[in-house]
């Protein structure tokens, strides 16, 4: 018993004052937790993008728009189709320093059978592919068969369902793990299936041929040999193969990681500003509250509460406020961020992958702890100021 219930009574019986302090700390916690979840998601999104693009060099048609649409496809899931002669693949393979060259072929569906949206279809060569294949293997190790497709996690169709593409029926055999990139909205098949789909598309009037009679591919992913200079291989490819552009994968995404670190910097600055502001406001609020109640505290001293006891009382109140505010803030931020993950990803146009549960828990715990600490700091400061005065002096004021 003792004074242990006094802080709770003090808080519950002044609901207005308590609510103000709790809301203030909640704001602090919400900004920190929300901000760090968004930044963390962007970071893990970029990591997963890099993992999916384990290539050193990407070779694609020289047309100016192919580079742009390639990137949009990866980042935002927009559809894009550009083609070059399949013979390019052999030329790339023949280049010095190239270890693996894996082709991919793109096709945009007209309309999926729901909602007005096009889907990107990506054909891969399972024998040599080293970017998408391991990702598909996680869910479907036996390899994509004829007219079998794997779908990104944001594609509506489920495993076992039939997906109609250009009047061709394909069977969904796997749903892939989330990457937080545009790859989540794409459909994957092997090259044989892709050739059939391309033919069907042509029958529908969607032209992709660059010259009659030859097979087409859209991009070649290149991994260079150990010890080979990526820049050298890249410039050799650019110089010796006609009508293609070779791009170093890393350079392709430097602006992505640049804007990511820009966002991270802005978020950190914002969080810092909110913390500084909230810390000042909290300090002032606690100081004001304690100043306003100094007579009450003097009375407690008069009734035999020691300095230490009074400090404990004040710290207990601020800790309870801080804890309630921190939990509320984390909860509100969670409601503001997690249900809108897809929206944030779309609006930012950057890879966005929510970190795993362990990381999130650590973030939430860290936020609560930090908020509590700030509250205690403010309380301790105010309490220390208070206990410097003799209660007798306080009791005289305005008596």
């Amino acid at each position, binding site marked *: 018993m003792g004074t242990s219930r006094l802080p709770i009574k003090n808080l519950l019986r002044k609901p207005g004052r308590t609510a103000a302090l709790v809301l203030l700390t909640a704001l602090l916690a919400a900004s920190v937790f929300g901000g760090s979840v968004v930044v963390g998601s962007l970071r893990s999104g970029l990591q997963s993008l890099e993992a999916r693009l384990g290539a050193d060099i990407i070779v694609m048609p020289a047309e100016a728009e192919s580079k742009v649409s390639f990137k949009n496809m990866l980042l935002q899931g927009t559809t894009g189709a550009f083609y070059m002669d399949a013979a390019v693949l052999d030329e790339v393979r023949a280049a010095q320093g190239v270890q693996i060259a894996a082709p991919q072929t793109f096709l945009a569906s007209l309309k*999926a059978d729901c*909602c007005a*949206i096009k889907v990107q279809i990506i054909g891969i060569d399972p024998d040599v592919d080293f970017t998408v294949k391991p990702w598909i293997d996680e869910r479907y190790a036996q390899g994509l068969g004829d007219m079998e497709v794997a779908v990104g996690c944001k594609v509506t169709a489920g495993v076992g369902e039939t997906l109609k593409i250009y009047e061709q029926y394909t069977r969904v055999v796997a749903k892939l793990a989330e990457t937080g990139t545009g790859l989540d909205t794409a459909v994957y098949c092997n090259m044989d299936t892709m050739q059939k789909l391309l033919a069907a598309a042509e029958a529908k009037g969607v032209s992709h041929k660059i010259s009659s009679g030859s097979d087409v591919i859209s991009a070649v992913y290149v991994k260079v040999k150990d010890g080979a200079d990526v820049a050298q291989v890249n410039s050799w490819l650019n110089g010796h193969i006609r009508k293609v552009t070779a791009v170093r994968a890393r350079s392709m995404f430097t602006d992505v990681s640049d804007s990511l670190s820009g966002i991270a910097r802005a978020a950190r600055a914002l969080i810092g500003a909110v913390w500084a502001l909230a810390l000042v406001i909290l300090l002032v609020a606690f100081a004001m509250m304690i100043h306003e109640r100094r007579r009450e505290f003097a009375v407690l001293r008069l009734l035999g509460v020691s300095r230490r006891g009074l400090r404990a009382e004040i710290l207990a109140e601020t800790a309870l406020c801080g804890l309630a505010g921190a939990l509320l803030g984390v909860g509100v931020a969670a409601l503001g961020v997690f249900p*809108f993950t897809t929206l944030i990803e*779309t609006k930012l146009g950057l890879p966005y992958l929510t970190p795993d549960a362990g990381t999130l828990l650590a973030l939430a715990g860290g936020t609560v702890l930090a908020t509590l600490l700030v509250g205690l700091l403010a309380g301790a400061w105010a309490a220390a100021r208070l206990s410097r005065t003799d209660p007798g002096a306080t009791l005289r004021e305005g008596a």
Partner: protein
Amino acid sequence: MKKSIIPAVVILILSLIIAVGSQTFLGACVHDDGSFGACHWACRAILGEGGLLAVLALMALALKRERAGLFIAMIPASALGLLTPGTLIALCKMPTMRCRMLTQPATMILFGAALLAALVGWLMSRRGEK
């Protein structure tokens, strides 16, 4: 007794955001060809439920004596709104559609908050009667 005004005002504000939002900033998209999807009709239903909740909240503000009962009525009314997008009325299948990214989570959170406020309001007004 007097304090139970606060949840009523909160619910009024929430329901107005829901009602107005369902037709504007939270609304579903119109297809390229101008046709409507199921999500469009879900938003119409949400408009109605938000409106109903707003009227109940206004009544709770005006009729002090009936406040506890009106709060009780708001609980299933908010629950209905909570279940509308996705559960009672289907939305688009693609998770990247606006109705799935924005309308559904936003209305569910708003209706959920209204439900909570109605519960709090009911407890507060019941205790006040005693």
